[in-house]
C-alpha cells in the first residue's frame, strides 16, 4: 500500500490537481503582492469552470470554451476590482458576496441554458486533452507526469516562470511591488496604485478563469454546481503561507496536490472517501498552525489576522 506514495500514477494525479491550483495561485499571488486581499478566487475559478464547459458545449470547441472561461473569470474579477478598488469596499465582504453570487449565477444559468440542475455532462463535448510527448513521455516516472499535462498545464509552467521574472526583473514588476508595500508612496511618484491593483485583479481573473477551464475541460469534462469546492480558499491560505513568493507557493501547492492525489488513490484501498475529501483541508490547517508556531518561536511576526 505504501508504494502508492511514490507510484507514477500518484504523481500523474498530483500534476492534474496541481495545475488548476497553480494557475489560481499565481493570480492570488499577484494580488497579494499589489496589496489586494483577494477572497474571490473561489468565485473566479467557479465562473471559469462554468464558462469553460458551457462554452465548449455551445461552440463545440474546447479552445473557444477556454476563451469563454477567461472572459468569465475576468468579469468576476472586475466586479471585485470595482467594489474593492473603485468604491473602497471591505475586500473580505465584497469577496464573499461575489463568491456567493457566482454560486447562484452558475446554477441559474445551468438551468436557464441547459435545463439541468446539479451537473452538466454531455457526451462528445470537446475537452482539453493531455499532450503526449514522443520522447520525454517515455521516461518512466517523469513521463507519466508530463503526459498528464494539458496545454493549460504548459501554460501554468510558463506563467510561473514569467511571474517570477516579471516581479524580480521588470520595471512594471518593481512598481507593482512598491504599490503593494506603500501605495501612498507610489502615488507620490506618479504611479497610480489603483491602476496596478486593478490590473493585478484582472490578471487574477484571467489566470483563475484558466484554472476553472482546467477543472471542467482538462481533468474531467463536466461541470457540477460548486465544483471549485473550497480550492479557492486553499489557494488563499497557500499565498499567505508563501508570503507572496513564487517558489514557496509552488512548494505549498504541490504539497496540497500530493495529499489530494494520495488521498484519492488510497480510496481504492478502502480508505473512507471522507478522509480523502478532508485531507487537503487538514493539511492546510496543520501547515498554517505549524508555520505560525515556528515563526512565533523564532520571534518573527506570525501570519497576522486579516
Amino acid at each position, binding site marked *: 500500500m505504501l508504494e502508492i506514495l511514490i507510484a507514477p500514477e500518484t504523481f500523474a494525479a498530483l500534476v492534474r490537481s496541481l495545475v488548476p491550483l497553480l494557475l489560481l495561485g499565481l493570480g492570488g499571488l499577484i494580488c497579494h503582492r499589489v496589496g489586494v*486581499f483577494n477572497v474571490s478566487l473561489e468565485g473566479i475559478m467557479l465562473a471559469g469552470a462554468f464558462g469553460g464547459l458551457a462554452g465548449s458545449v455551445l461552440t463545440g470547441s474546447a479552445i473557444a470554451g477556454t476563451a469563454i472561461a477567461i472572459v468569465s473569470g475576468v468579469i468576476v474579477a472586475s466586479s471585485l476590482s470595482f*467594489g474593492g478598488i473603485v468604491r*473602497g469596499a*471591505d475586500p473580505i465582504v465584497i469577496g464573499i*458576496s461575489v463568491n456567493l453570487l457566482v454560486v447562484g449565477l452558475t446554477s441559474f444559468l445551468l*438551468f436557464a441554458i441547459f435545463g439541468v440542475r446539479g451537473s452538466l455532462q454531455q457526451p462528445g463535448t470537446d475537452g482539453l486533452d493531455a499532450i503526449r510527448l514522443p520522447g520525454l513521455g517515455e521516461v518512466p516516472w517523469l513521463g507519466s507526469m508530463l503526459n498528464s499535462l494539458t496545454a493549460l498545464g504548459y501554460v501554468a509552467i510558463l506563467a510561473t516562470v514569467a511571474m517570477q521574472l516579471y516581479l524580480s526583473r521588470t520595471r512594471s514588476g518593481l512598481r507593482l511591488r512598491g504599490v503593494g508595500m506603500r501605495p501612498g508612496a507610489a502615488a507620490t511618484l506618479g504611479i497610480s496604485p489603483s491602476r496596478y491593483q486593478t490590473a493585478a485583479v484582472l490578471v487574477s481573473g484571467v489566470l483563475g478563469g484558466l484554472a476553472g477551464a482546467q477543472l471542467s475541460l482538462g481533468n474531467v469534462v463536466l461541470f457540477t454546481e460548486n465544483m471549485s469546492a473550497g480550492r479557492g480558499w486553499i489557494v488563499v491560505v497557500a499565498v499567505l503561507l508563501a508570503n507572496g513568493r513564487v517558489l514557496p507557493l509552488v512548494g505549498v501547492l504541490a504539497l496540497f496536490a500530493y495529499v489530494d492525489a494520495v488521498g484519492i488513490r488510497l480510496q481504492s484501498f478502502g480508505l473512507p472517501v471522507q478522509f480523502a*475529501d478532508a485531507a487537503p*483541508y487538514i493539511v492546510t490547517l496543520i501547515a*498554517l498552525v505549524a508555520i505560525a508556531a515556528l515563526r512565533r518561536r523564532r520571534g518573527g511576526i506570525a*501570519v497576522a489576522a486579516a
Partner: protein
Amino acid sequence: MTAVTTAGRRRDPAVLARRLLAALTGTVTVSILAALVAVGVLLVAIGQNPFAVYGALVEGSLTGRGLVTTLQRSVPLVGLSIALIYSFRAGVFNLGGQGQFLVGGLASVVTALALPGTGIAGIVVACAAGVAAGAAWGVVPGVIQVTLGPPVLVTSLLLNYIGIAGVSYIISLLKPPASSEQATPTIAEDLKIGALVPAQSDLGAAMGQALERNDVLLLAVRGLNWSFVVVILLVIATILFNRRTATGFEAGVTGLNGAFARNVGIRGGRIVLTSLAISGGLAGLIGALVVLGTNYRLLDGQFEATGYAMTAILVVLLGRSSPLGAVLAGFFFSMLQVGGEELNRTFALSPAIASIIQALVIFFVVLRLGIPFVTQRLRKRAEAAATGERIEEVPDAVPGPRDNSTVKEG
C-alpha cells in the same frame, strides 16, 4: 449648550419622519431595489416578465402555506444569524457557522439516539449536547488566532470542510445496515420537538373546528414548532446582552476598534474566545433544534444543502450585526428562498434566483449605494437643528493619496 438625550430625540416626530426618509433613501433600501432591477434585467434576457415573476415570488412566499414555509425557514436562518452576530459584532470574521451548525446537529442526534425516551428533559439534554459540541468546535479557530495568529477568517472556513467530511463519516458509521440512505436512525418519538399547537391536542382540535382548513393561523400554529419560540427568546436575550451587559458592550467596542479596546482595559483574546464560544454554541443549538424539531435524523449533506449557514453570513451583513436587523433580513431572505422555489414550479426558473438576489443585495450594500444627495442634505439639516454651533472641521492631514487597497496581511 442644552443637552439632547438620545431617548428624547427618538420621540420627536419630526426627527422620526426624517429618520424614516433617511432609511428609505439609505443604502439597504437602494441596494435591494438595485438587486431587483439587476435580476429583472437578467429575467428579461431569458424572456421572462420580471413583474410577473416578482409577483409570483411574493405571492408564493407571503400568502397561505407559502407564508408558513417562509416562517419555518426563518427560524433556523434567524437563529444562525443571531449566533453569528456574537462573533461579527466583536469583529471576529467567523465563517465557520456551517461546521458549528452541523456538529451541533450531529451531537444532538447522537445524544438523542443514546437516551432512553425521556420527554422534555431528554430534549434539553440533547440540545445541551448540541450547544457543547458547537461551542467546542467554534472556539478552535479562536484559540488558534489568539495563541498563534492565523486569522479566524481562514481557519474557521477550513474547519467547515473538515467538519462536513467528519460528520459524513460518523453518519456512515451510524447508518442502519439495511438502509439505503446515508442517514442516522430516526430519534425516539417523545424526543421530537412538537408543533406549537399539535393537531391532536384539544386546542388544536378546537382551532381546527373554528378555523378554515387553509387559514394561515391554523397552518402556522400547526406548522411551526417550539423552536420558533426559542429563537424569539434568543433575539430578545441577544438585544439585552448587547445593550445591558459589560461583556456585550466590550464586544461591541472591540468590533469597532480592537486596538482601542486593548488600550482601555478590554481583554481582546478573551472577547474573541467568548464570542466564538457563544456563536458556536448557539449555532450548535440551532443544529439541535433542526434535528429534533424538523428532520428527526441527520441525513448526509442535508444541512449543507439548505445553505442556511452561508446565507446567515449575508443576513448578518445586511442586518449590520443587529438582532432586529437579523430578524428582518432573515425573514426577507427566507421569503426570497421560498418564493424562488415557487418560481421553479410555476415558471420553470432555477431557484438559484433567490441566492442571486441575496448576494447582489449584499454586494450593493458594501458598495454603499445610496442616494447621497438626499442623505447628505438630511444630515446637514439634522446637525444644524441639533446645535446652534458651527462645528469646525479642518482636514486633519494631507488629503493626499488614499491607501485604498486595505487588507494586507503582515
